[in-house]
């Protein structure tokens, strides 16, 4: 998928309707995901490191008897790694990976709230001046003097977590 295709999609996807989102923090930034894809929020639990895997998905966990991968958006965004804290959580989301609905755990430094947001007020990520790969961001929404990042999980997982520079 080209960057262009992703971006146009992001713009056209915006609707005036408010959607339920879960907001959470990674590396001091606020991210939001549609609540509809969130299955569960977990406290940290024992992880099994998968030797030889990409840093983006370097571990698996036992989620209700299923072994699911643990992904770190931080790696895709090229953010610096931070140690886990008492607030760290795992957000389990259901994604479509190559046509198969799959459960994936996302590492979060903390989860904030479930709230209503309208993507209509969002804007596509600027081409320059952004410290994160723009192709992984669906849109930015201004809210209470700061902004909330809607990551494009589809693009992130399609790229397998490699940023363009790395790939």
């Amino acid at each position, binding site marked *: 998928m080209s960057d262009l295709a992703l971006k146009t999609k992001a713009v056209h996807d915006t609707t005036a309707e408010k959607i339920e989102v879960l907001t959470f923090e990674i590396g001091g930034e606020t991210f939001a995901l549609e609540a509809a894809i969130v299955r569960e929020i977990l406290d940290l*639990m*024992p*992880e*099994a*490191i*998968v*030797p*030889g*895997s*990409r840093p983006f*998905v370097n571990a*698996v*966990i*036992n989620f209700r*008897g*299923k*072994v*699911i*991968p643990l*992904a770190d958006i931080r790696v895709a965004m090229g953010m610096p790694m931070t140690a886990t804290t008492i607030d760290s959580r795992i957000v389990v989301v259901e994604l479509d*990976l*190559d046509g*198969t609905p*799959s459960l*994936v755990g996302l590492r979060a430094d903390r989860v904030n709230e479930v709230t209503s947001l309208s993507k209509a007020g969002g804007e596509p990520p600027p081409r320059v001046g952004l410290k994160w790969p723009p192709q992984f961001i669906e849109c930015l929404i201004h809210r209470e003097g700061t902004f909330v990042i809607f990551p494009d999980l589809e693009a992130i*997982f399609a790229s*397998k977590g490699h940023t363009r520079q790395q790939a």
Partner: protein
Amino acid sequence: MTASILTVDDSVSVRMTTRIALTGAGYKVTEAVDGLDGLNKARATRFDLVVTDLNMPNMDGLRMIEELRRLPNQIGVPILFLTTESDATLKGRAKAAGATGWLVKPFEPDQLIREHRLDDRALVDAVFRALHTLKGSGAMFGFDRLAAFTHHCETAFDRVRKGLAEATPGLVSAVLEARDHMRALVEDPSGDHAAEERYLLERLEAAVSGAAATSVASISETPIKAAASTMPTTWRIKFSLPENSFVNGTNPLSFLDELRAMGECRVLLDKSALPPLEKLEPTALYFHWEVTLTTDRGRADIEDVFLFVMDDMTLEIAALSSDTPSVEVVPSVTENADMPTPVVTVAPLPEPSAPEAATRPVTDAADPKLRRKAESVRVPAERLDELMDRVGELVIVQSRLQQIAANSADIGLRTVSEEMERLCSELRVTMMVLRMVPVATLFDRYRRLVHDLQRDTGKKIELSTDGESTEMDKTVIERLADPLVHLVRNAADHGLEDGDARRASGKPEAGSIRLSARQTGGEVIISVTDDGRGIDRARVRAKAEAAGLIQPGATIADQDLLQLIFQPGFSTASSVTNLSGRGVGMDVVKKAIESLHGSIDLTSRPGEGSTVSLRIPLTLAIIDGLLVRVGEGHYVIPLPAVEECIEISQEEDLRSRGRAFLSLRDTLVPFIRLRELFATGTKPDLYQKMVVVSTGEERVGLIVDQIIGHHQTVIKSMSKLHDDVTTFSGATILGDGSVALILDVGNLVSLGQEQEAQLRAIA
């Protein structure tokens, strides 16, 4: 009892018209306004005729007809549809949906009555068959009166079927009344129905006594049991059933029993068609029977015995006069009335030329209680899968219990835990066995394929199979079907030469394709072998270079070169044929096999042929594993692959630094330090252990920090996000809820071999 008709039409005027006409003709009419409504009404009541419009809201006529045909209470109901167009395709579609006939709108109500499809042969035949079945089933389940009564109805209908009588509304209503009576006979088999029966049969007789209705009359007044002459006649009955009879649930012994019940009976078994043991299909019926029966019953009664199988069998019935010489001796053996399954009888007969001394006519029917078959139950596959999941969960819980018990001083708890472990293990084994099916079910599919391939390629091909009794998990077998189709096609199309080329190279004209299966340890190896030209290395190389898969002139090991044919888009066929050579196939095979955690070996000798071997783990669900610890992580090594575990002393450990193999009883075994491979970053334990694993010939030692022990491993697949990690074939959940990864032994072995090769190259 009047016939009830359902009319389905969204036009109120059509409905009213039909209703008025039909009630006037003495029918009971139910109306429905659209397909959905019609279907709901049909669910509630059985109708004798359905007349429907096609263009309707909610559910159109075609859909409704299809649905109606699935309703158990409307089986065989004639369905007419109304159409304004005389469109042939529409009629075809409606017929395909299950309609019996049609009427063109606007229609005369009289026409509808007339068009009750009385002259519809298919319908008459359907009724006849239904009566026939009812009679047979009735007799089988002990409803003798029902059987006898139905027999008369059937006879009447037979006349219609043969064109001796005409189907009239009179017949229809007589039959409908007869049907009600049959229901009464089912519900109250012992009641007194004689008068009713006589009346009905008279009506039936009247209905079919058009031209020369004599036989029905005579039948209707004679009870079936005494239908024929009382003089005993000797009959010679030869019958043979199709080979697949057992599959259809036909038991030839029941026919013999019925014949025996008729009178003095001599049964000879003709087993001349029995093939030699190696060609014998255990589920096929190879026997024919010849029965000499002396009975006072007529030919029709004898024919009745074979009522249900008549269409597929050959039956000869000949009357023998008393001075006819006895039946000529055919090679035969004792007809064993106790045979529980066909296999048991067949197995002890190695040669078709059993001595005639073994001929011993059996005259008495055996006690039916002795003939209990090995009972089997059909279970939907998904229920087995569910059960499998539950067993998997149970195994995980059990390992938790085991862990708790191990840390406890409570003897009682420990005992329970051990019991639990044993039971779980047994349950798991039983579960596995339930899911196992012989690969014969898989191989059988390819006979037809090879037959078609012969036609398409113009090559003579002989398919041979062995190891068909090897059993594998049902799901695995299903997922092997398509890859094997590719391989067989490939062998026929690319592997085998045509007849001329084969003769020129001194091979038999017919090419051979061999499918074989065998089990070694925890794997089943299924191979497809052809005796064709073998893989042309030069062409593979040229193709791979052209496709950019390898550098031109690059040195590449033979096995690696051959493995190139499994790359996507690779095909050496110079022209695209019908069969293979579209550049799809082999990579699909590889993917399919890898998804089964299997691997593919390919060997090929130029001019002699190729063998593709698929190594497939026996099951996908639960395996026995060896739980080990490397650094802080836990890993499972599939137990069938483990050869031995060795403790490595510190001296040995130090000496082996910088080398990649250890001397094990005078042979050098390459080894891999998993701690290094996994980059654990931890200090090694004082005493390292080596687990020697193998895949067939090749061995490799895996050095781990600790061997924890045996672990029943419920395999969970890895996410697609970990597709790139080849070291692990899956994951499992341990007793404490943590996750352990399952090592892919095949992969580690080839890694070890590579490592060894590299080191040798340096040295």
